[in-house]
């Protein structure tokens, strides 16, 4: 007997230990349930973290654009619609009005951490007989690379952009048969063209961007696209990524720009996350319920099996409260030990899953993230569930009439 354990704990532990099979089976049951919760939660966290990292290193958190050009229905003098059906106008390459002023305001905004003006448009990349339509981003590397981590994605060459340089995607390089250091003729719709040297090849993680995205110096893009001194977007990062939407709304309200946050542009992702979190919560609730009923069932049987023991304990002076606690503790212990077992099961499952499931390119599908809070919260909740589940059997044990219990 452990000298430091109180009577109730000693009795609870002994009773659980003596009921070997019952204890083993219920702990296994709880372990499986808790394991599923741990596995799912950690997987979800990992996938989310992965997605966030990808999004936040390949997109600005807020993008400022010229306000949408809006078409209105044509009316005659009487105010009647002459033509109620309107088509959105194609959005021409237009610069943000007075963008340096807006940029300075953004630089002064305490919520904003990085500001980078960008000139984007489309063009044709020509090399020998091959040509491909490309999207050109003219950027200021110093600030832009802090928003989109191009240097992290470089697979050949370096992330250097002087006015004669271009960084292209891996697929485009393949399509054009171009290598590092090769010259590329880039031709705008207007007919103007420049010859640029490939200084870097990037892998942006997706086939589409790898085929189309190219990066040049801001000035190069401006002169190529015929918008000297103009920018099409101002890209921002903010201090609190989750506040991006509110910050964007504030910027849009006080400037003549449209401000799109990453939260808005990735609305689908958040819908998916919400749906997953809802189903995760449901699973938790139902696992908790079945754990609770499992524990209650085991303890109800145990109270019946041990009614003689309970009777004799009462006869030797044990109070109803002591008997109550002996069974409550058993419930709590089952929940707690089950949660420990479940955490092991969940972690083992995750490690295994992580090792066999890979992305197409062989990289990990999700990072193994084990937050301590997940385990602590799970253990606490499982213990509380056990205590709650034990309430009914424990009360029955406490109410047993010792005379009846002893007679059996």
């Amino acid at each position, binding site marked *: *007997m*452990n*000298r*430091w*354990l*109180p*009577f109730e704990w*000693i*009795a609870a532990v*002994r*009773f659980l*230990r*003596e009921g070997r099979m019952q204890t083993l089976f219920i702990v296994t049951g709880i372990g499986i349930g808790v394991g599923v919760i741990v596995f799912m939660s950690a997987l979800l966290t990992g996938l989310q973290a992965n997605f966030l990292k990808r999004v936040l290193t390949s997109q600005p958190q807020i993008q400022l654009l010229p306000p949408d050009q809006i078409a209105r229905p044509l009316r005659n003098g009487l105010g009647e619609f002459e033509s109620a059906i309107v088509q959105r106008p194609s959005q021409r390459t237009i610069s943000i009005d007075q963008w340096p002023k807006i940029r300075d305001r953004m630089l002064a905004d305490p919520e904003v951490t990085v500001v980078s003006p960008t000139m984007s448009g489309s063009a044709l990349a020509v090399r020998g007989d091959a040509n491909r339509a490309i999207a050109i981003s003219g950027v200021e590397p110093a600030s832009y690379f802090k928003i989109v981590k191009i240097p992290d994605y470089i697979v050949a060459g370096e992330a250097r952009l002087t006015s004669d340089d271009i960084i292209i995607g891996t697929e485009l390089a393949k399509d054009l048969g171009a290598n590092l250091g090769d010259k590329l003729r880039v031709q705008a719709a207007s007919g103007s063209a420049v010859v640029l040297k490939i200084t870097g090849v990037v892998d942006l993680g997706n086939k589409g961007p790898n085929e189309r995205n190219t990066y040049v110096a801001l000035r190069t893009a401006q002169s190529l696209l015929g918008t000297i001194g103009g920018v099409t977007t101002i890209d921002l990062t903010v201090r609190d990524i989750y506040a991006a939407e509110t910050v964007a709304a504030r910027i849009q309200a006080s400037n003549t720009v449209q401000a799109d946050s990453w939260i808005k542009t990735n609305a689908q992702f958040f819908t998916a996350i919400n749906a997953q979190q809802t189903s995760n919560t449901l699973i938790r609730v139902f696992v908790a319920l079945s754990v609770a009923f499992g524990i209650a069932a085991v303890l109800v049987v145990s109270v019946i099996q041990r009614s*003689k*023991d309970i*009777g*004799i*304990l*009462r*006869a*030797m*002076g*044990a*109070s*109803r409260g*002591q008997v109550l606690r002996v069974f409550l503790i058993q419930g709590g212990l089952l929940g707690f030990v089950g949660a420990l077992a479940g955490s092991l099961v969940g972690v083992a499952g995750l490690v295994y899953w992580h090792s066999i499931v890979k992305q197409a390119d062989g990289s990990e599908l999700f990072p193994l993230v084990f937050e301590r809070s997940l385990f602590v919260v799970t253990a606490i909740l499982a213990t509380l569930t056990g205590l709650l589940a034990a309430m009914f059997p424990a009360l029955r044990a406490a109410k047993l009439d*010792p*005379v009846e219990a*002893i007679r059996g």
Partner: protein
Amino acid sequence: MAEEILRLERVCKAYNVGLPSETEVLHDIDLRLNRGQFLALTGPSGSGKSTLLNIVGLLDRPTSGRLFIKGQDTGLLGDAAITRLRGHTIGFVFQDHHLISAFTAQENVMMPLLVDRGFPGADIAARAGDLMERVGLVKVAGNLAANMSGGQQQRVAIARALAMGPDLVLADEPTGNLDTKSADSVFELMRQVNRESGTSFLMVTHNLDLARRCDRIIDVVDGRINS
């Protein structure tokens, strides 16, 4: 005059009170037991001996009448006080040993002390050790109940009943499951404790030979004392 441990005044006990099946099984029992007395309770099956023992043992309450333990009217006590009084003044030995199977023999003997103190101190283990020695079971002190003979189990039960140093031990057919030889030695053990420590005993028995070796025989017939 000897110190009074137990007194019953016109104790009645009815079962199923208020129901059509209501039956009174004890009628106007008057009984007194002094310190150091060893009483035998005899009588035919169903006469109410166990019922009487349960009432004396504070496991059950009389329907009417009064029960005094060491001069205290137990009818005035609440549930918690009754439980405490029971733990401190009364020890039980049953026909079945009722040892808790999850614990060893010596741990079973420690149990009343553990329940009372809350924690298993060294003094508790030492006292249980002494008691095991007194009932001659030092060798099997670490055994589980299942690994002992009936006589040994009953001796452990006696040691457990003595753990709190009770004033009164109630024994309901303690030798009922034992062969003559074991029955004899278990009875002798109780008699010896009774003589050495002055603990009072109230023992239900069908064994007239043993009953005759007690200080007094109380014969219960149809819920009345017949003496």
